[in-house]
């Protein structure tokens, strides 16, 4: 594969004696959109958080743009600037205005001047459709607006890769669409994206590749038409049946 952005090999993660990730190998190439789906507790969020080392992997290597993040001598703060992260709970800095949320890291981490940082911030607010909210405080925004600010904040650092950790799971249903639209726009612009999501429609339409995780491992992967459209594995099938048709399922099948 050429132009590999993220190269993960032999990734393992345990919390105490509980093994959450077992031996994951994955590569994400530039411009690729990879959606990670799977039941809760399958380790998909932990997997994503291992990519920017918010979780310290127990074993294995994470290489981003040729820099090994898991090397203890790597400047992790410098490496994280390439990786934008969007959280389920938005995690906007609640003591700062929207504009300051977008400029603070540009100024303190990238050393950009005030004027430049604000210009970049306003450009990104425009991009997520919230140019008029620059002066608002996060608490004054709806969840969907907060999440779009969260995306704009990550974009303001000009990352190479964007990581999304269930970006719409904490939103009221009618607010999900705006956030997904912004993400779809990013994908169309060629951003490399790794997205943990429960939005099957989004995965089906936007993803280049879908990973189905269960029990800490990747059970099935491939183009969305295969994994979501025609899953081979029984575990994928039963998960999709429950997700796509939640009111018409019997109790989860057991093996």
């Amino acid at each position, binding site marked *: 594969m050429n132009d590999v952005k993220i190269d993960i090999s032999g990734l393992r993660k345990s919390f105490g004696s509980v093994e959450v990730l077992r031996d994951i190998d994955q590569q994400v190439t530039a411009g690729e959109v990879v959606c990670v789906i799977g039941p809760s507790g399958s380790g998909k969020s932990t997997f994503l958080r291992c990519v*920017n080392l*918010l979780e310290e992997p127990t074993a294995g290597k994470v290489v981003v743009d040729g820099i090994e993040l898991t090397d203890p001598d790597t400047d992790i*703060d*410098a490496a*994280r*600037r390439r*990786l*934008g*992260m969007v*959280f*389920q*709970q*938005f*995690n*906007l*800095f*609640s*003591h700062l205005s929207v504009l300051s949320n977008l400029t*603070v*890291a540009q100024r*303190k*981490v*990238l050393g950009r001047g005030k004027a430049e940082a604000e210009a970049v911030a306003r450009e990104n607010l425009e991009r997520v459709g919230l140019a008029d909210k620059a002066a608002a*405080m*996060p*608490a*004054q*925004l*709806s*969840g*969907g607006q*907060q999440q779009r600010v969260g995306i704009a*904040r*990550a974009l303001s*650092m000009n990352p190479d890769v964007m990581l999304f950790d269930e970006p719409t*799971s*904490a*939103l*009221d249903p009618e*607010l999900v669409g705006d956030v997904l639209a912004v993400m779809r726009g990013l994908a169309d612009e060629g951003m490399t994206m790794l997205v943990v999501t429960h939005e099957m429609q989004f995965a089906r339409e936007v993803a280049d590749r879908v990973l189905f995780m269960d029990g800490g491992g990747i059970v099935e992967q491939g183009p969305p038409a295969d994994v979501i459209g025609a899953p081979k594995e029984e575990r994928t099938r039963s998960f999709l049946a429950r997700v796509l048709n939640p009111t018409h399922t019997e109790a989860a099948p057991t093996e």
Partner: protein
Amino acid sequence: MAVDAPPTKSGPAKSGMSKRQRGRVIRGTQYAVLIAVLAALAVLADWGRLQEAFFNLDVAAGLFPDVITVALVNTVVYTALGFGFGLGLALILALMRMSSVGPYRWISGAYIEFFRGLPALLIFLSVGIGIPTAFPGFSLNRNITIMLSLGIVGSAYMAETIRAGIKAVPGGQIEAARSLGMSPARTMITVVIPQAFRIILPPLTNELILLTKDSSLAFVLGSTLDQQELTQFGRAALTNFRSMTPILVVGLCYLIIIIPLSVVQQRLERRFGGGADKGSSGHGSGT
């Protein structure tokens, strides 16, 4: 009451009074007790003597303007010095307490346990008398002595308050800062400490109020007339005027300092409102 009526949930109780009626009787009794106590106080107290002792307007007039221009100003200055120094020291102590370097944690823990456990008076005595004794020829300015003493007392309490505030900042805020490439120190300064101070505004105001009153302990250092703070000024006036009125005046002066502080606290809280807990979870907060 019909004997054959089925038991109902909300029918009249056995006493013949409904819950609402009983509530009214109870509330009426409470008002009656309150009025009786106030009436007894009004009748039994010797208002004439009280007025002479505490509300002697001539004596009160004689206290002005010094009670404001000297005593109240000194109280405010001493408190500000002590609180400023104490807050800075407390922040350092709180960060030491959470340091990954063991000895810092132990030193900070020992400091807090030690100075939290001692009466403020002892600290004033040891700083005011102990330091000049220990280092002959080295004399501390009186204001510095007060700043150190009050600051040491306050910092021991405030360090724990600040630590609690820092711990109360949601972990998601730290993760967001780190994933934007901020170092741990930068995250602490830019994100955690500002939010922690918003959380601990009420207990910090409490501490400022306590220090305002502790500033009265400056009397143990001795003072010239223009160094007197409110309590000492009041005590001196007590002997000069042979009336209790200075106590009342001085007490009112403390309230003049402290009540605005509470108002400022409420203003600040409202201004920085929409706390981290509400702000970051937003609509339909999940797991």
